């Protein structure tokens, strides 16, 4: 019997090595898999490359991962925020490398990795600093920049509901990068608020089919509130 359920975040992340590239879900705190991130810190893997829309907020989640000096490089679209002090400090000290990518290009590069696309031309950022040194091409009456996929070893995402085949649904705008990150990693680990029996997710409403998911860990909302 296929059973992708794993008992704890720690067990789900037990094989993450130093130097791994990790897609980390979330837009700010919405969809950020906080318990998986905590387990990643506890695991102690170093030299990680983290792909996320942001670069950490406040003291928890990605910010804590940066503060724990686990991260070598961040690929993101919007690092600078009022509460991104851990990133700001590590970046300014030169210990953290930043690759800044326009948000839509970030999403499309992740999706391209998942969908087996070798590279694509996007109009975004043409003529700007963020396209400097990149190949460009005029197609029809528009100019485009060539962009390459972002493949990853792991994706850590947060979903709402999961079954033992790994089918997932999400909750409102916490969906954000989850479905495309799930496609783009060799090993996708989802924390879910609720586990359900096979068939309890409407097959018309599955957002991430289980083929993209290796491990599912239940971290109920109640448990998180209590913590």
């Amino acid at each position: 019997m296929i059973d992708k359920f794993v008992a704890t975040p720690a067990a789900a992340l037990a094989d993450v090595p130093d130097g791994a590239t990790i897609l980390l879900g979330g837009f700010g705190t919405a969809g950020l898999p906080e318990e998986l991130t905590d387990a990643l810190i506890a695991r102690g893997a170093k030299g990680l490359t983290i792909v996320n829309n942001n670069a950490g907020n406040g003291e928890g989640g990605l910010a804590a991962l940066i503060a724990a000096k686990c991260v070598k490089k961040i690929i993101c679209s919007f690092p600078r925020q009022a509460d991104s002090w851990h990133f700001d400090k590590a970046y300014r000290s030169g210990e953290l490398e930043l690759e800044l990518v326009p948000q839509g290009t970030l999403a499309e590069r992740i999706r391209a990795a998942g969908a087996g696309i070798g590279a694509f031309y996007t109009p975004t950022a043409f003529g700007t600093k963020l396209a400097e040194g990149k190949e460009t091409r005029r197609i029809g009456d528009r100019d485009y920049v060539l962009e390459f996929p972002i493949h990853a070893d792991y994706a850590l995402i947060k979903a709402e509901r999961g079954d033992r085949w790994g089918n997932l649904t999400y909750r409102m705008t916490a969906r954000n990068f989850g479905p495309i990150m799930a496609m783009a990693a060799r090993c996708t680990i989802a924390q879910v608020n609720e586990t359900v029996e096979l068939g309890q997710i409407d097959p018309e409403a599955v957002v991430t089919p289980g083929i993209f998911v290796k491990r599912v860990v239940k971290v109920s909302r109640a448990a998180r509130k209590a913590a």
Partner: protein
Amino acid sequence: MKKMDRNQMAARVARDIPEGAYVNLGIGLPTLVANHIPAGREVILHSENGVLGIGPRPAKGAEDYDLINAGKEPVTLLAGGAFFHHADSFGMIRGRHLDFCVLGAFQVSVSGDIANWHTGAPDAIPAVGGAMDLAVGAKKVLVMMEHLTKEGTSKIVERCSYPLTGAACVNRIYTDLAVIDVRADGLHVIDMAEGLEFDELQKLTGVPLHYRETAKA
């Protein structure tokens, strides 16, 4: 002369957005536009973090931080709204499905270049978010900004001195002094703050403006 305040500017932008339009409102000043869409006019608001059909702010205490806009503020969803993932959301933007986006800006040039993501200061931490996608993707790019910097120089310029967000993409500029169209033959004043004369506007603005009394909207 009476400068428009932020709400007057937002109301002026809202006036130009017709029923049925799909609109992305940038972080900050543009977000105010939502409050000024006339009651009964259906305009569908998009946020790049994966939602169409954003409604009013939730009541105090009813915030749910799984339902936020691109500025990470809690919002609500109207009946008829939908959620989708980031690649689909930016497919909408880049694929030219949005009728309008409204962006803040540091500078806009006479050719419609916009700079709004980076001051270029050497120690600044850059952050671009979805601005570059919106600049190239929306059918109409509207800019909302103060006319003058704090130092009193024009933010409408011959060439942007800050790093560009997008080239030749702005269609219309809304400032606290005027509404200005960016056209192939230059900048055309469409509307001015109450009591402002064209000569004065021209003097305050760094670049040549066109103005025909009859063009006033």
